[in-house]
């Protein structure tokens, strides 16, 4: 475990140094993503104003919380595991051999081999929004919990969907949808969905454990129980994603492709 953490730390430092070489592109990508997220507040502001301040049991402050938590979790996930959305493509092109030859954890090396520029904008947006939303101390703690554990759940979900490539041959369909599928449900009030959909949002597309459960913790509704549930869910989805990837890896057939990583 110590070795893995050290390796992760080195990947992070290396990737950060790499993107800072292109400072202008980095700041532009981050700023445009920040702006992109901010425009949705206009949409929601109009709707909440129209509905007298409540939609699906959420007020505007709750909505700001779920947007902040969702953006920060997504940002952190794509900063640390920037190659998450390229698993399908890497396997289809037969480029996984490069990672298999390295004497370190394959999944960790694959996920951390790049860092997303624009994800820094998502993370910054989440932090700024939570500061503007007027949350108390418990709200800030719940946000930090969502950012880390929600990020783990989000990364695990995308990793599972992308890893279906090992079983399907080419999972472009699921891979292209993976981010939308994982993120889309995290930016709407939970109360608008029927009960059956809400059940799916706990277990199939675990949007609940990315933003809605942390919101319950922020509101102080059975907080200790939900904190425990959140931590268990993060551990469960991370464990399942790792098991699923390694299970699929056994089916991988090398394309004997020569690739150089610089």
């Amino acid at each position, binding site marked *: 475990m110590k070795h893995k953490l050290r390796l992760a730390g080195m990947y992070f430092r290396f990737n950060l140094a790499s993107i800072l070489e292109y400072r202008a592109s980095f700041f*532009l990508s981050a700023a445009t993503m920040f702006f*992109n997220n901010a425009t949705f507040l*206009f949409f929601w502001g109009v709707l909440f104003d*129209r509905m007298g301040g409540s939609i699906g049991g959420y007020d505007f402050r709750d909505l700001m919380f779920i947007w902040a938590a969702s953006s920060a979790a997504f940002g952190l996930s794509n900063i640390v595991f920037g190659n998450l959305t390229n698993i399908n493509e890497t396997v289809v092109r037969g480029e996984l051999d490069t990672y298999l030859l390295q004497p370190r954890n394959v999944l960790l090396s694959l996920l951390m081999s790049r860092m997303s520029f624009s994800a820094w904008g998502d993370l910054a947006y989440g932090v700024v929004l939570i500061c503007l939303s007027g949350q108390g101390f418990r709200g800030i703690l719940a946000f930090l919990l969502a950012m880390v554990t929600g990020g783990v759940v989000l990364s695990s979900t995308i990793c599972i969907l992308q890893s279906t490539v090992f079983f399907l041959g080419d999972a*472009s369909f*699921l891979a292209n949808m993976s981010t939308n599928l994982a993120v889309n*449900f995290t930016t709407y009030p939970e109360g608008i969905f029927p009960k059956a959909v809400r059940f799916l949002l706990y277990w199939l597309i675990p949007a609940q454990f990315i933003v809605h459960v942390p919101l319950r913790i922020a509101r102080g509704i059975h907080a200790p129980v939900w904190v425990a549930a959140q931590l268990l869910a993060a551990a469960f989805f991370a464990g399942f994603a790792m098991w699923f990837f390694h299970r699929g890896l056994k089916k991988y057939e090398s394309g004997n492709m020569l690739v150089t990583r610089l």
Partner: protein
Amino acid sequence: MRKYWMTFRLGVTGALHYRGNLVAGFATYAMFILVFFCLWRNMYAQSDMPEMTLTQMIWYLCITEIIAFGANPRATGGVVQDVKNGNIAYQLLRPYNYVGYKYAESMGPVAVNTLLFAAAGSILGFCIVGPITGFRPWTLLPGVLSMILGTSLLFFIQMAIGLTAFFIEDPSGIGLVVGKAISMLGTFLPIEFLPAGIRQVVQNLPFSYVTWAPARLMVGFEGGLFFRCLCLQAGYLAAFIGLCALLMRRGRRAIQANGG
């Protein structure tokens, strides 16, 4: 005209070959519509909305998302690439108008994707909310005309943004701002739902005439509105075609070609 028609047909053939991406597009489209349905059903249950019925609203969103998913030419990226890698100098030697060629090339996939997404959207709309009460099928014709003008307007807006690459290093920021304006001022929300002050401004800007005008005409046709939308769409289209011609003329002077 024949060369542009051939380019259009090549675009149609190309679009029919990449069916895998379309399946993912349909699934994402359906997911967006279902989430919007959950949201608006909840809001209509909470409060009356005199501007549109729930059925009209869902059909409105089905149509605007057809344009966003299927009829988006995404012209900016290709032009920026051509300018940055110098390919545009090579293309300007060919016996066609560069902007006209790009228009014909984009409209092939746009035509195929729009038809396919329209089929998917119609099935989805009928399954979720059924037909609009009092709908007159002939009103689809002016709606389709408005959609063609809206898509062309979107192409020339994107082309104008792309052509600014002659003068600025990276116009993707402008593209993002304009794209967001189109999404927020008509795609996700009919402009009738915006606060009065903002609506007054928005209904005179070109952005709403890409998605709002065709969708609004299809779900609730009004003769006066059709005439107004048609005039504004045609006017803005002419303005952006003129802007593209101007940018091309200025941009040509900035090209430095070295033989070898």
